[in-house]
């Protein structure tokens, strides 16, 4: 599959990373409509603002976090040798600079600033986006002190009114904002003003991005005209729908035990085209992830109807991409001799792609000296008529790579088969190399493919297939309906991945050596350090879901307890 376009990735990342909130805190009063929330936030923002990020009483340990980062960047710290020295120096210098504001260390300075509220925004003025910052500190006196400091230390003009600070690259803008807000009676610490501030969501960082504004906002609108097929597939045709919604709201929660970003685009579901609905298979039961097995490193699910995507391609992607997809289809058809993809096969490919990766275990034993993690991919389909076609393809696909392997002088797979749980599995296994020829990497997996009632499976381990099939037999089927529907989900257990890392350190070190020109000893050392960091990194979940008719994209990271206090046992880490 083609990789998604950079524009889409940037957009998704921006949307996902730019501060989320849980839907419930967005609207504690219930489903009064996300529109209402947008309007409420807008009250505090100056006119013509299209990007507004409000940061409120940052987590108390953010200051501790900053101090921790400072120690990480020491020359003897755990990042030494991984990150170039000059970058570490830059970060240290920046933090030192902040610390100088209070002369009490960077952590406390950040904590002081973060003790109040501040907002960052961009507004339209004179056809251009102009950034600004509004901050509220503890008292009028503090505001004045900061104003003086800013002037004397950085030569920067800061406007104040009461406990509020106004900062903008151009002095007049700050003034404008201050005056503008003052005219609306918000800045005065009157009871009315305080009440409005109190109504804002409780998450530390919240804000919105207006999708319809002129100027910089058009970048997102351009993203809705996705150029290539791969991006459209990943977006599921949603880009157009997103473009028609008013705003993206986002929230972030930065604690030392959990980092959570979430972005919500309200009302997306209502804007989806019929073609997009098909691709996202919204009118069918939701996908259920493959069951977890011992040693799971990652699970993936992608709710895309592959079949519908191909059938609807003319409505979803540009003509040039259609031609490319057509050619790809022709190539695939070579595998399915006798069947016509468009009429016979594609309509039957049920939505959804699911995958799982787990650590090597005894069930994967081969003679080769490798302990690679093993993976399995599952694509569902329906209809007996295509079962045979898919099963034939399943038999062929394992051996199809042999032609290429032979041509390249590589050892070829020996075809075998096994029957497990009622599935007839085609397996490709590498024979022991002759003479003194070293084991190839390909011998560390047993390529397998099969098709049956749970769909088409392709993977590197028949044992894993058995574990998954057993798990599926005990999984409840999906329930249609409900106001929440997870579309895509990637779940990564970094701590478990670290084990896989350690099991394959030599192989990874050699690849790093060949790729970067590091000596084996240096490679190993670097990778060991990385492994330690990974081991403490906990779990990451990236998800998109439809909730209350809106699209929610979230990123959730729970590092192991104490990650931010970590002493990554390198023997050289911070002591």
């Amino acid at each position, binding site marked *: 599959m083609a990789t998604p376009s950079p524009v889409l990735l940037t957009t998704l990342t921006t949307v996902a990373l730019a501060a989320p909130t849980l839907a419930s805190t967005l609207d504690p009063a219930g489903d009064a409509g996300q529109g209402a929330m947008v309007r409420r936030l807008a009250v505090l923002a100056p006119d013509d603002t299209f990007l507004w990020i409000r940061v409120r009483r940052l987590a108390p340990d953010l200051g501790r976090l900053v101090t921790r980062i400072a120690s990480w960047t020491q020359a003897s710290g755990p990042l030494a040798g991984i990150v170039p020295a000059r970058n570490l120096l830059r970060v240290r210098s920046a933090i030192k600079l902040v610390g100088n504001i209070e002369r009490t260390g960077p952590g406390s300075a950040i904590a002081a600033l973060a003790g109040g509220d501040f907002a960052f925004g961009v507004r339209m003025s004179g056809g251009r986006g102009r950034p600004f910052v509004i901050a509220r500190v503890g008292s009028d006196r503090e505001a004045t002190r900061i104003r003086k400091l800013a002037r004397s230390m950085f030569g920067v003009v800061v406007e104040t009114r009461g406990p509020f600070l106004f900062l903008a690259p151009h002095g007049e803008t700050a003034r404008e904002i201050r005056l503008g807000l003052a005219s609306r009676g918000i800045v005065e610490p009157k009871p009315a003003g305080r009440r409005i501030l109190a109504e804002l969501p409780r998450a530390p960082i919240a804000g919105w991005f207006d999708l319809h504004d002129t100027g910089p906002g058009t970048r997102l609108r351009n993203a809705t005209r996705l150029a290539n097929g791969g991006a459209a597939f990943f977006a599921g045709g949603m880009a157009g729908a997103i473009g028609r919604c008013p705003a993206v709201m986002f929230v972030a929660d930065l604690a030392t035990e959990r980092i959570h970003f979430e972005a919500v685009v309200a009302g997306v579901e209502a804007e989806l085209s019929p073609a997009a609905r098909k691709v996202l298979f919204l009118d069918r039961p939701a996908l259920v992830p493959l069951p977890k097995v011992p040693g799971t490193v990652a699970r993936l699910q992608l709710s895309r109807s592959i079949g519908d995507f191909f059938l609807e391609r003319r409505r979803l992607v540009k003509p040039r991409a259609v*031609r490319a997809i*057509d050619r790809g*289809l022709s*190539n695939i058809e*070579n595998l399915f*001799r006798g069947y016509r993809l468009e009429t016979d096969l594609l309509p039957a490919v049920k939505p959804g792609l699911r995958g799982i990766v787990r650590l090597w275990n005894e069930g994967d034993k081969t003679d080769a000296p490798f302990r690679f993690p093993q993976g399995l991919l599952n694509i569902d389909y329906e209809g007996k008529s295509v079962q045979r076609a898919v099963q034939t393809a399943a038999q062929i696909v394992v051996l199809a790579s042999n032609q290429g392997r032979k041509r390249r002088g590589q050892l070829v797979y020996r075809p075998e088969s096994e029957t497990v749980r009622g599935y007839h599995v085609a397996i490709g296994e590498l024979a022991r190399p002759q003479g003194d020829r070293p084991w190839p990497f390909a011998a560390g997996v047993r390529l397998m493919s099969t098709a049956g009632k749970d769909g088409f499976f392709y993977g590197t381990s028949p044992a894993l297939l058995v574990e998954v099939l057993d798990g599926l037999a005990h999984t409840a089927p999906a329930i249609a309906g409900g106001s929440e529907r997870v579309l895509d989900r990637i779940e990564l257990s970094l701590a478990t991945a670290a084990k896989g890392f350690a099991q394959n350190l030599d192989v990874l070190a050699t690849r790093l050596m060949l790729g970067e020109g590091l000596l084996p000893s240096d490679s190993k050392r670097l990778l060991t350090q990385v492994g330690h960091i990974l081991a403490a990194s906990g779990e990451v979940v990236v998800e998109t879901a439809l909730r209350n008719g809106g699209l929610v994209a979230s990123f959730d990271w729970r590092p192991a307890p104490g990650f931010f206090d970590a002493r990554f046992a390198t023997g050289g880490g911070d002591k």
Partner: protein
Amino acid sequence: MDRRNFLKTGGQAFFALPCLDPFLGLVPDAALSSLKLVNRARDRLLVVLELAGGNDGLNTVIPIEDPIYHRVRPTLRVEHSELTLGDDSGLALHPNLGGLHELFREGELAIVLGVGYPSPNRSHFRSMDIWQSGRPDLEDAQRGWLGAAAETLGRRGSEVPAMALGGTELPLCLRGKIVVPTLRTLEEYQLFQDDRAGKANSGRKKTLLGLVEEKENDDRLARLIKRTARQAYVGAEKLKNAALSYRTKVEYPRTGLGTRFELAARSLSSPLGTRVVHLRLGGFDTHASQRRTHPALLSELSTAVSAFAKDMKVRKLWKHTAVVCFSEFGRRVAENNSRGTDHGAAAPMFLAGGSVNGGLHGTQPSLEDLDHGDLKFAIDFRRVYRDVLESWLDIPSAEILGGRQAGLELFD
């Protein structure tokens, strides 16, 4: 890079360099005159277009009046085509090849029928190697028929005699002992500039040139190195200026091949003396649902070649240009069960150019007398190569092709 960046108003001959670049102003005349500037009137240009995958010749040059054709290709046959090739050949071009047909009518397209080689090999890789090396007799040729030609052209004074355009890997046909650049854009044949240095870059170019200024006490080796270096720097600069001053009135189709043909036109007109350019169009391996892709490919081929011909005519280079089109094999006569065709053998070859001896060469292979379901070849492809090498490029062909071949009179 958008072509429009290079368009300017007013027609102006290609060779007038704007010469606003101070870099060129620094080069003493002696260095410029030491470059062997090309005499366009004499030299011949060649574009080799590879149709990768095995083009279905039978649906390209169609025996439209042969009932066997219509019988064995129930779903794939082209029922009717206006683009007949002569009055009584019984052959017509596929309806999407309008551009090629126009060239045919003007006598600028030669179609060689039934081209192949003995004991045809139906493996893509093996057969493509055979076509690219020109040596069916060699198991593992390392050198291409054009690589050898490029060496000779280099000795005759071309600075960069050949280029492979549009990909990243050098095709076998151009492999030989000399360095042949593989470019996706002409901008890649430029001296690298570190953008972070900003204005310092012109000073850096000055330094580089200064380091290769010939001095009194230079020995022969030093002179050779310095001369080559100056030629490289100045050549890249001239190319850049030439590209900037390039104007074309011809609109190339917005397809992959169209873009590459435009690049070819610019390469062949550049001051680097490039004579041979290789292009590739893929996707011809139509085992299934051939109707879905083949006609579009033929259209892409026809529009691109047509635009290129027009462009070269405008530049007054068409009489000195030849486009040779080949594929690694044809396809089977009967269609298969997947509404496609499988690997075959003999197929037609096209040569387009202002000095090409246009018309049909050879006879269309019989649809009855087949070789295991494939068309039998009548003309060895090496004979076509021989004509290209000897009649067109004036390069002896026997050593390159592993033997003498009889000519076909494909050029005027």
